[in-house]
């Protein structure tokens, strides 16, 4: 229980530093909201067929940007921050105190999850107010929350794994983005894939976690089918990430 108390206290400072750091607050918080406004304004007027349903693109983008917000907070930001903190020796310094490493890292993950939740709520509120987008309710809401939590924990685990592979802080923005940007495009986050995407693109979506995660998130907004297998694939990637992180993640700066 003492660790929970420490984690909660740590959260306060993690949060202070997050909002004061322009690269965290701007790139990971403001970007998803900015994309939401741009995409819905430029491309939101149309409808298209998805899984045999007629879907409004505004609603589609509300769902897609909610997914992007979570990935941004739990994967992109966390992977970069952990690499910076390791490189600057901040993690090493914390390791030299009685603060349990797990309590410190837990505060990071909980904070990322809270930022993701805030992004999802803001995105949904924007969609509702400006475009009368549909929001998940009832059982769909519960399934949505499950997908959100599994996604947040899994993408956080993958963030620690990728951070453990990044050699130094200078390489962090490039390497983190190269692992995620192509997937965001190929998984229908920025551009809806519709039902006629090339086969190889469909395969990328099947193999990697982003498409599955986005499918789970969008079912609550669009009324498309919710497949527990999507949750399973995301969780599997999370488990692999956790295994890699547990083996490789290190508090010491790389020389």
């Amino acid at each position, binding site marked *: 229980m003492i660790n929970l108390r*420490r984690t909660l206290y*740590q959260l306060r400072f993690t949060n202070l530093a997050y909002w004061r*750091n322009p690269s965290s607050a701007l790139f990971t918080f403001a970007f998803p909201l900015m994309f939401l406004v741009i995409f819905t304004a430029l491309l939101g007027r149309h409808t298209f067929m998805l899984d045999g349903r007629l879907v409004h693109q505004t609603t589609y983008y509300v769902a897609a940007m909610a997914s992007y917000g979570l990935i941004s907070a739990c994967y992109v930001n966390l992977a970069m921050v952990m690499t910076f903190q390791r490189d*600057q*020796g*901040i993690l090493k310094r*914390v390791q030299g*105190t*009685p603060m349990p490493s797990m309590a410190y890292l837990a505060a990071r993950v909980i904070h990322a999850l809270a930022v993701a939740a805030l992004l999802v709520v803001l995105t949904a509120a924007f969609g509702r107010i400006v475009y009368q987008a549909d929001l998940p309710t009832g059982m769909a809401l519960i399934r949505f929350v499950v997908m959100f939590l599994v996604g947040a924990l899994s993408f956080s685990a993958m963030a620690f794994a990728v951070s453990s592979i990044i050699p130094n802080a200078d390489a962090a923005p490039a390497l983190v983005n190269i692992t995620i940007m192509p997937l965001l495009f190929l998984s229908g986050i920025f551009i809806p894939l519709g039902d006629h995407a090339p086969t190889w693109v469909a395969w990328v979506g099947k193999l990697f976690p982003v498409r599955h995660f986005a499918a789970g998130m969008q079912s609550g907004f669009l009324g498309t089918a919710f497949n527990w297998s999507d949750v399973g694939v995301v969780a599997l990637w999370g488990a692999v990430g956790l295994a890699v992180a547990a083996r490789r993640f290190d508090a010491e700066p790389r020389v």
Partner: protein
Amino acid sequence: MAAITVKGLRKSYGDNEAVRGIDLEVTDGEVFALLGPNGAGKTTTVEILEGYRHADAGEVSVLGLDPARNAPALRARIGIVLQSTGIDQYLTVRETLSMYAHYFEHPRQVDELIEIVGLEEKRDSRVTSLSGGQQRRLDLAVGLVGDPELLFLDEPTTGFDPSARREAWQMVRNLTALGKTVLLTTHYMDEAQYLARRVAVMARGRIVAEGSPDSLARHGGDARVRFRVPDGLEAPFGAASDGVVEVVAMDLARTLHEVTTWALANKVNLDSLDVLRPSLEDVYLRLVGEAAS
């Protein structure tokens, strides 16, 4: 009581033997300096004592605990100020110390710490806005936040200007007044000489000399007696160069007696008499040079 005991410590990284069997003993309440050039094995040794690395062989006891096995218990009682450990740039001085204070069961008061390191004016400034010297003072405050019995200071003044160094030294001296044991690593002789009661010189993974700064200086060989011979007098004790005689004094009392006897007999007032002792720097350079060859 020994705060730190080390026996036969060894550590290699691949083929590189960083520490090749060292013994150390640091007594409670003393400032002990581990002196040596870069790459001598100081940091490896200290990081083993701090529990960051594990020894390949040897016995290590820090405050009665084995750092490899009891790191969590040990870290509640030590303070670590490393050379290059960062600090969150976006928190203020006070927020940083409050955060670290929470990591310990019995921390010192944050305001009191800010006073000890003299950062009162920067209390509410973000870490980004601190000068290098001020950041180092914050490092020291973070090292002291858990009110440690033993403080590790790794190269505390590297990169400081002379006045910042003096300031840092004064701060370390104040710590010993609080009864803290300090293990200092440095490659500056004057720092070790000024701060430490005992010094161990480390080179190429071994301890090549150990003792008080004064006793180490005596390692450097015998004192020399030097004086000027007035024109027209024949120089005693062999040849003079430019009228200056320099004698190696195996027995200082006897040599001085002989010199003064000669001076009285020849009515020389010896106003240029010097007794030269090898400086710690001479000794250090010689020891390190011997280890390297």
